[in-house]
Every structure is written in C-alpha cells, then in structure tokens.
C-alpha cells in the first residue's frame, strides 16, 4: 500500500451555507409556534376561567390581602381608614350602575405609599396607592379610576391572567425538566410577549366599561379625560420609553382616543361639571405624604 495525504476538497464535513439563513428560519418558526400556542391556550383559559366561582377567588386572596395590609411597608394606621372608607363609599355608589354579578363584592384598600398605581386582584380586592390619589384633580377622575378597577373585577381579569400564568409555569416546568434553560428562556420571553397582547386587550375592555360608567354616573365623560391626562403626564416622565408591543397597557393616547370615539359614537357629552375630592381627604393625603417623607429622613440620618 502506498500512503499519501493529498489535499481533500472542502465542504464535506462542514457546511459552506450561511448560518443566518438557518437562524432566520428556525427563529421565526419557534416564535410563531410559541405565540400561536400561548394564544390558543390563553383563549381557552379565558373562556374557562369564568366558571371559577367568585367565592373561590375571595378565599384564595384573603391570606395575601391580610399579609399585604400587615406588611411594614404599608404603614397603615387607624387614621387612614378615613381615606379607605371614602374610597369604599364611592365604590359602593358606583357599583349599582355597573351590573355586577350577585356574588361579587368590591373591597377598597388605601395604600399609603408614593407609588403611582392602582390595581385590582383576586376576590374583588382593589388597592389604590397614595401616589396616584394625590395626582387626581377631581372626584370624576377618581370615579373613572375606581370604575376601571371594578371593571377588571367584573370581567374576571385577575383570575384569567393568573390562570394563564399558572398554565405557562406548568409548561415551563415540564419543558425545563427535559432541556436546558436557554429553551425555557426563549419560551418565557416569547410567551410574555403574547401575554402582553392579552393584557392590552383587557385594559382597553376595562377602559370601555369605565367610560360607560362615567357617562351613567355624571352624564358626561370628562372624568375619563381627566384621568388619562394624569396618566399621560406620568408616562412622559418615565425614564425609559416602552414600545407599544412590549407594553402591558395600551398607549395613553390610544386610550384618550377611545374615550373620544366611544363618546362620539353614543352622542355623549365629553365635558361637564367637575366635582372636587373632599378637602379633608386631600389634607389627609398631604399629611400622609409628609409623615412618610419625614420618617424616611429620620431613617436616612
């Protein structure tokens, strides 16, 4: 046998093909598949969550609500019942106009923190933060905010989004048991995107309910405009701009346009008399803020 090592042609054991083609193909495939799957499962869960009785929600929520209220950070004192009972009274005034189911109870909580936020969770528990309350210029805007949160409860949004979250966590647990965390990272990232789509729809639906309530309660929708003006100002102050696709809420301008569109379609008055928030409440909020700031100064020093 005569040995030799001639030059062997390239491209047999390796591929000359551009990997970008493969990358594009696989990523679009994976992306589409995951989004389609999440969308399908999400829609099924949306439909089936309505059969979970409201009493279950209340039972599940109670320990978390208790924990939240007893948490150091909330610093609730007996004086803050003033604001909480004011909010509860307002809510009780507007719920008859919102055609809630019989077993649904709305409980308002006032959270003495500077965060500009309001949220509705399981069991009809609604938390309004001082930071947002401070910024509302009128009771009309506050009613619009409360109506928006109550609409979330009415439309069972908390239980729907939590069930979707649980289902996806289950799927992760199965998938991550089988493969590496990069795959679960891809799955989690893409499904988050799909969930944001659901979230934006929910927010807009809640908006629509709240605008209708505004009209029924005051015979005009200016409260809605007031609220969104505040949110617009807040969003302009935000440090990082989030593009619409990656945001959990519709863009504020879109929400403002929705008010206009809905009012025009139904011939509702968009402007009207504004009722102010009672002065004792406003004073209480200012005092709470000062108290918190001075306590933070004491802690810092």
């Amino acid at each position, binding site marked *: *046998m005569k*040995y*030799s*090592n001639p*030059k062997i042609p*390239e491209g047999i*054991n*390796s*591929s000359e*093909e551009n*990997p*970008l083609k*493969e*990358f594009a193909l*696989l*990523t679009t*495939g*994976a992306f589409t598949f995951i989004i389609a799957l999440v969308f399908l499962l999400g829609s099924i869960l949306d439909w089936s969550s309505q059969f979970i009785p409201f009493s279950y929600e209340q039972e599940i929520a109670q320990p978390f609500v208790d924990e939240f209220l007893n948490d150091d950070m909330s610093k609730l004192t007996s004086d803050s019942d003033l604001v909480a009972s004011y909010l509860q009274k307002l809510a009780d005034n507007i719920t008859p106009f919102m055609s809630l189911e019989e077993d649904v109870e709305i409980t308002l909580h006032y959270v003495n923190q500077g965060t500009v936020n309001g949220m509705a969770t399981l069991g009809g528990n609604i938390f309004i933060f001082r930071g947002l309350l401070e910024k509302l210029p009128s009771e009309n805007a506050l009613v619009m905010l409360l109506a928006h949160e109550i609409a979330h409860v009415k439309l069972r949004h908390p239980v729907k989004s939590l069930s979707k979250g649980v289902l996806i966590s289950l799927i992760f647990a199965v998938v991550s048991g089988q*493969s*590496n*965390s*990069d*795959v679960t990272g*891809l799955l989690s*990232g893409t499904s*988050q995107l799909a969930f*944001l789509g659901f979230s934006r729809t929910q927010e807009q639906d809640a908006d629509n309910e709240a605008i209708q309530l505004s009209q029924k309660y005051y015979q005009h929708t200016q409260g809605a405009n007031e609220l969104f003006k505040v949110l617009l100002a807040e969003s302009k102050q*935000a*440090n*990082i701009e*989030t*593009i619409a696709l*990656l*945001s*959990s809420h519709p863009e504020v301008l879109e929400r403002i346009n929705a008010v206009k569109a809905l009012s025009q379609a139904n011939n509702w008055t968009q402007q009207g008399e504004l009722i102010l928030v009672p002065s004792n409440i406003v004073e209480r909020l200012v005092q709470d803020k000062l108290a918190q700031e001075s306590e933070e100064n004491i802690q810092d020093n």
Partner: protein
Amino acid sequence: MEQFQFQIVIGLVLLLLGYFFGRYFEKKHFQSIVKREAELANVLVIASKHTTASDSNKPGMMVTGSVVISVDYFKRFLAMLRSIFGGRLTSYETLLDRARREAILRMKQEARAMNADRIFNIKLETASISKNASGNIGSVEVLAYGTALINVP
C-alpha cells in the same frame, strides 16, 4: 416591561457580537489551516497500525496535537433552536471540522520538529470542556495522537 425590552436588546447585541466575531475568527482560522496543511503536506498521517517493512527499524515516539476552541453565543443559540426541531447542527459541524484539522496539524508540527515524516496509528478524541450551568457546551477540545517514526540520519 422596560426590563423585558432591555433583555431583548442585550440578547440581540450578544447574538450580533457572536455572529460577526465568530464568523471572522472562523474564516481566519480556516485560511490558516489550509495554508499550513499545504506546508505540512509531506508529513503523512496514517490511521493504520502497521508500519511498512522499511519503517519498522526506525525509532518511534508518540506525538500529540490538541486544541481547545470556544463556542460563540450565536452558534450556541442556533444549536439550542436545533435541539427543539432536530436536524443537522451545521454550526457545530464547522467548529469540529476546524478543531479536528487544527489538532492534526499541531501533531504534524510536533512530528516535523522531531524530524519525523510519518505518523502511524493516529487517533482522535473529542471532549467538551466547561459545560455551563444549563448544560450547554462552553468549548470543545480535540486531541490527536499517534506514533511518529523518526528519520535517523
């Protein structure tokens, strides 16, 4: 959700870095490999165990060549996608081709340095080094070894 945006941007930057630098180094490496294969063409590597009659009197010694090459982020991502859909992992195939040829070249270089021009009974071994926490390979090592027959003047 701003955090999510941030994560996406970082992911994309890493992918781009991995792709451009990865391709650049790969191209450079392949060019170097082809050049050195031409230079070392007269050092023969033979997989057979048996030497020829004329060679059997020469002194022999083991020569080795090893190389460790790292996987870049782009290759790893592509491999991860392939692990879902299945199929030929071309991104790793080029990596291993490079590593194998480099290891053989280094072994040949050792042999030439010892004044040998035939290496018999060559074997190759591949190992993945530094698997990271999620079980992805960090880098791959190829070891080539064989018996070199030294030309005694």
